[in-house]
C-alpha cells in the first residue's frame, strides 16, 4: 500500500467494549483456515496416520485446556465455560473412532477425513433455526480448524514481536486470550457486542476493545498507526498530528489513575496504623512470574501445581517437578512461595477413568494423593529438593480431618528420609499449611492449626460447600454469595481460631481479590491475601488507605447484618465514600 493518498485520517465509530486509550501500529489478524487436500495412503502409512491424528487430538486438547484454565483463572469459572463445549467435542470418542475406521478403510489422509466428518455435523448445525445451534456450529468449526492446524503441526499464531493494536473481522475469546500473552495495545473487531465473551475478557485483561467497527479489517493495513479509545468506542486510522496530540493527552489523563496505583508497587501492604499484611499472588504458570514481580507481590500465596498435569497421561517425574519448583523458588527468592500439592478431582482434570456422580463430594485433593502415596512422595521430594533456599512452603488442599494431615505429614517425613539417605539437601523446617475450604475443616480450625504453621482459606470451595451451591450451576448462581452472613461468620471463626493457636491465616480464594471484601477481611484480621496478579495494586491501595481499627469496626458492623444484600450495600457505601475511583464489580 503506502501511496500518498492512502495516508488520510479515517475515523470509525464502533461500540465501546473495554475502556482505555492506546496508540500504536495495527496488526491485521486473519484467522488461519487450513486448506485441506485429499491424499491416498499406502497400507504402510496407515498406522502412522492414525498416530498423527491422535497426536493432533491430544495437542488440541492440551491447547484448549490451557485456554480454559487461563480463562478460569483470569475470568472465573463462569466465563471459562465458553470453552467447555469445544473441550467436550474433543472428548467425543465416537467421532474419533469413526475417523480412524475411515482412515483404515478408505486409506485417506486424516486431514481430509477430519474435515469430512465434522462438516457433516457442521452443515446441519448452521442450517438450524435456533441461534444456540448456530453458535455451537462456530465452536465446531473452531475445533475442526484447531485439529487441522495441529495435524499440520502449526503453532498458534499468537507470538508477536512488539506491541500492536489487533484488528480482526472476528476474534474468538480463545484467540484474544492467547494474544494477551503478548503486549497487546488494544483489540478492534468488526463483529461482536459489548456483552460478548470477548468484551468480558478484554475488560478482565484491562485491554481496550472496540467492537462492531464495520470493514476496518479490510481498510486498515498492518503497521498503520491506530488510536483506539475503548471508553468512547472510537478508532482513528492514520491520525493527523493534531488528533494524535489530543489523544495522547487523553491517554495520559486516563493513565494517571492506574499510575497512581502502580506507584504503590514498592510500598508495603500495610494499614495507616501500620498493620502489615502479606499481599501475594496466585499463579499456575511460570510465565506469570514476571508480571507477578512487576505488580509488587510479597510472594506466591498459591502455586497451583495441577497445571503441570494438563494434557498428560502420566504424572510428571520427581526430577521434572523439581526443575519447575526450583525455577519458581529462584525467581521469587527471597520471597515465599507456597506450593499446593496436586489438587485433582472435583471439576479439575486427571481423575482418569473415574466416574463419580458427585465429583465435588468425591475423590479429590488430598484424598487422591493419600491414595496414591508414590505420586505424592514424588511431589513432596521434588518440593523439598527445591526448598534449599528456605523460601518454599507446602500446602495441602481439601483437608477435612486431622488424620489426613497426620498421614500427609508422615509421608513428608518419609520424603525427607529418602532425601537424607541420598545425601540431598532440603529445608528441614519447611513450613506446611492446609487449605480451609470445607466446612468440616473450618469447624476444627483449632485442631488443624496445632498440626501446621499456616492456614489458607479457599473461599470458592468453602462457599460452595457451606451454602450447598454449585458455583458452576447457572440456575443457582445467585445463591453463591461471598457476603452471605454464614460465610462472613465462618471467616471470623477460622481467623480467630487460627490466631488463638499461633498460626497465620491467609486467603487464596477469589474473595481475597474482590475490592469490596478487602476492608472486611482486613478488619477480620486476615494475615495474608493471595490474589490474581491483576488486582494486586487495587487491593494494596485499599489496605494502605485504612486504619486497622476502622476496618475492625466495619467488620463488626457487617457481622451483625442478616443478609448478603445488607452487607454488600453497607460495604459498597463505605467503599464509595473512601475510594470513589476504585471500580466495584
Amino acid at each position: 500500500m503506502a501511496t500518498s493518498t492512502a495516508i488520510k485520517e479515517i475515523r470509525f465509530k464502533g461500540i465501546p467494549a473495554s475502556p482505555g486509550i492506546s496508540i500504536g501500529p495495527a496488526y491485521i489478524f486473519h484467522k488461519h483456515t487450513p486448506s485441506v487436500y485429499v491424499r491416498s495412503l499406502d497400507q504402510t502409512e496407515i498406522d502412522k496416520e492414525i498416530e498423527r491424528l491422535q497426536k493432533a487430538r491430544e495437542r488440541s486438547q492440551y491447547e484448549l485446556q490451557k485456554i480454559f484454565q487461563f480463562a478460569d483463572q483470569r475470568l472465573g469459572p463462569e466465563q471459562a465455560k465458553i470453552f467447555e463445549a469445544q473441550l467436550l467435542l474433543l472428548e467425543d470418542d465416537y467421532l474419533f473412532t469413526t475417523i480412524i475406521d475411515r482412515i483404515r478403510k478408505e486409506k485417506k489422509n486424516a486431514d481430509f477425513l477430519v474435515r469430512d466428518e465434522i462438516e457433516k455435523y457442521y452443515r446441519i448445525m448452521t442450517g438450524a433455526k435456533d441461534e444456540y445451534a448456530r453458535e455451537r456450529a462456530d465452536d465446531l468449526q473452531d475445533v475442526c480448524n484447531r485439529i487441522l492446524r495441529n495435524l499440520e503441526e502449526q503453532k498458534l499464531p499468537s507470538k508477536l514481536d512488539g506491541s500492536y493494536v489487533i484488528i480482526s473481522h472476528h476474534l474468538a475469546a480463545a484467540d484474544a486470550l492467547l494474544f494477551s500473552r503478548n503486549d497487546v495495545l488494544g483489540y478492534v473487531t468488526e463483529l461482536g457486542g459489548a456483552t460478548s465473551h470477548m468484551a468480558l475478557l478484554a475488560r478482565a485483561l484491562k485491554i481496550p476493545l472496540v467492537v462492531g467497527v464495520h470493514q476496518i479489517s479490510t481498510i486498515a493495513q498492518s503497521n498503520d498507526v491506530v488510536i483506539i479509545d475503548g471508553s468512547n468506542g472510537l478508532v482513528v486510522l492514520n491520525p493527523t498530528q493534531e488528533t494524535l496530540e489530543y489523544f495522547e493527552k487523553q491517554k495520559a489523563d486516563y493513565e494517571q489513575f492506574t499510575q497512581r496505583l502502580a506507584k504503590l508497587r514498592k510500598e508495603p501492604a500495610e494499614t495507616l496504623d501500620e498493620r502489615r499484611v502479606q499481599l501475594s499472588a496466585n499463579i499456575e504458570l511460570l510465565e506469570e512470574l514476571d508480571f507477578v514481580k512487576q505488580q509488587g507481590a510479597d510472594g506466591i500465596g498459591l502455586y497451583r501445581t495441577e497445571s503441570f498435569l494438563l494434557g498428560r497421561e502420566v504424572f510428571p517425574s520427581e526430577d521434572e517437578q523439581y526443575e519447575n519448583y526450583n525455577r519458581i523458588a529462584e525467581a521469587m527468592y527471597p520471597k515465599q512461595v507456597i506450593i499446593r500439592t496436586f489438587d485433582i478431582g472435583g471439576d479439575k482434570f486427571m481423575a482418569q477413568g473415574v466416574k463419580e456422580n458427585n465429583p465435588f463430594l468425591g475423590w479429590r485433593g488430598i484424598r487422591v494423593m493419600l491414595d496414591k502415596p508414590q505420586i505424592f512422595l514424588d511431589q513432596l521430594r521434588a518440593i523439598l529438593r527445591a526448598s534449599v533456599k528456605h523460601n518454599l512452603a507446602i500446602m495441602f488442599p481439601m483437608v477435612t480431618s486431622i488424620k489426613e494431615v497426620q498421614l500427609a505429614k508422615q509421608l513428608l517425613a518419609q520424603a525427607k528420609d529418602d532425601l537424607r539417605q541420598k545425601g540431598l539437601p532440603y529445608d528441614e523446617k519447611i513450613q506446611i499449611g492446609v487449605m480451609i475450604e470445607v466446612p468440616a475443616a473450618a469447624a476444627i480450625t483449632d485442631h488443624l492449626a496445632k498440626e501446621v504453621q499456616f492456614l489458607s482459606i479457599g473461599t470458592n470451595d468453602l462457599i460452595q460447600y457451606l451454602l450447598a451451591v454449585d458455583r458452576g450451576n447457572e440456575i443457582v448462581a445467585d445463591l453463591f454469595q461471598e457476603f452471605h452472613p454464614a460465610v462472613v461468620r465462618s471467616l471470623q471463626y477460622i481467623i480467630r481460631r487460627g490466631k488463638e493457636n499461633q498460626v497465620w491465616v491467609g486467603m487464596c480464594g477469589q474473595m481475597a481479590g474482590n475490592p469490596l471484601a478487602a476492608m472486611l477481611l482486613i478488619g477480620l484480621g486476615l494475615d495474608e491475601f493471595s490474589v490474581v496478579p491483576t488486582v494486586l495494586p487495587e487491593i494494596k491501595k485499599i489496605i494502605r488507605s485504612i486504619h486497622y481499627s476502622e476496618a475492625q469496626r466495619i467488620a463488626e458492623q457487617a457481622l451483625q447484618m442478616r443478609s448478603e444484600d445488607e452487607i454488600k450495600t453497607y460495604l459498597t457505601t463505605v467503599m464509595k465514600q473512601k475510594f470513589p475511583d476504585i471500580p466495584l464489580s
Partner: protein
Amino acid sequence: MIQREVTIRNKAGLHTRPAAAIVKLAAKFKSDFYIEKDDMEINGKSIIGVMTLAAEQGSKLLLKFDGVDEEEACKAMVDLFERGFDEPM
C-alpha cells in the same frame, strides 16, 4: 431392540449441558444407543451428534437401544429426559 419416544421438557432445550449428561449416561451402558429426530438419526454416545440435534423445548425424539442392557439403559435415559435434565422446565 427397544424404542421410546420422549419430549424435551426443559426450557433451554438440548444444549451443551444436557447433551453432555446424555452422553455420559449412555456411556455407562453396553447397548448401542441412537436418537432419531425428524429424519435424522445420530449416535447417542457421541456428543457432537447429540449437539447437532439442536432440540428445543417440546420437540419429540425417538430413543433406540440395542444390546444386552437395553432395558436398564432405556429406563435410565427416559428418566433423565423426563426430569428435564434437572433443569428448569
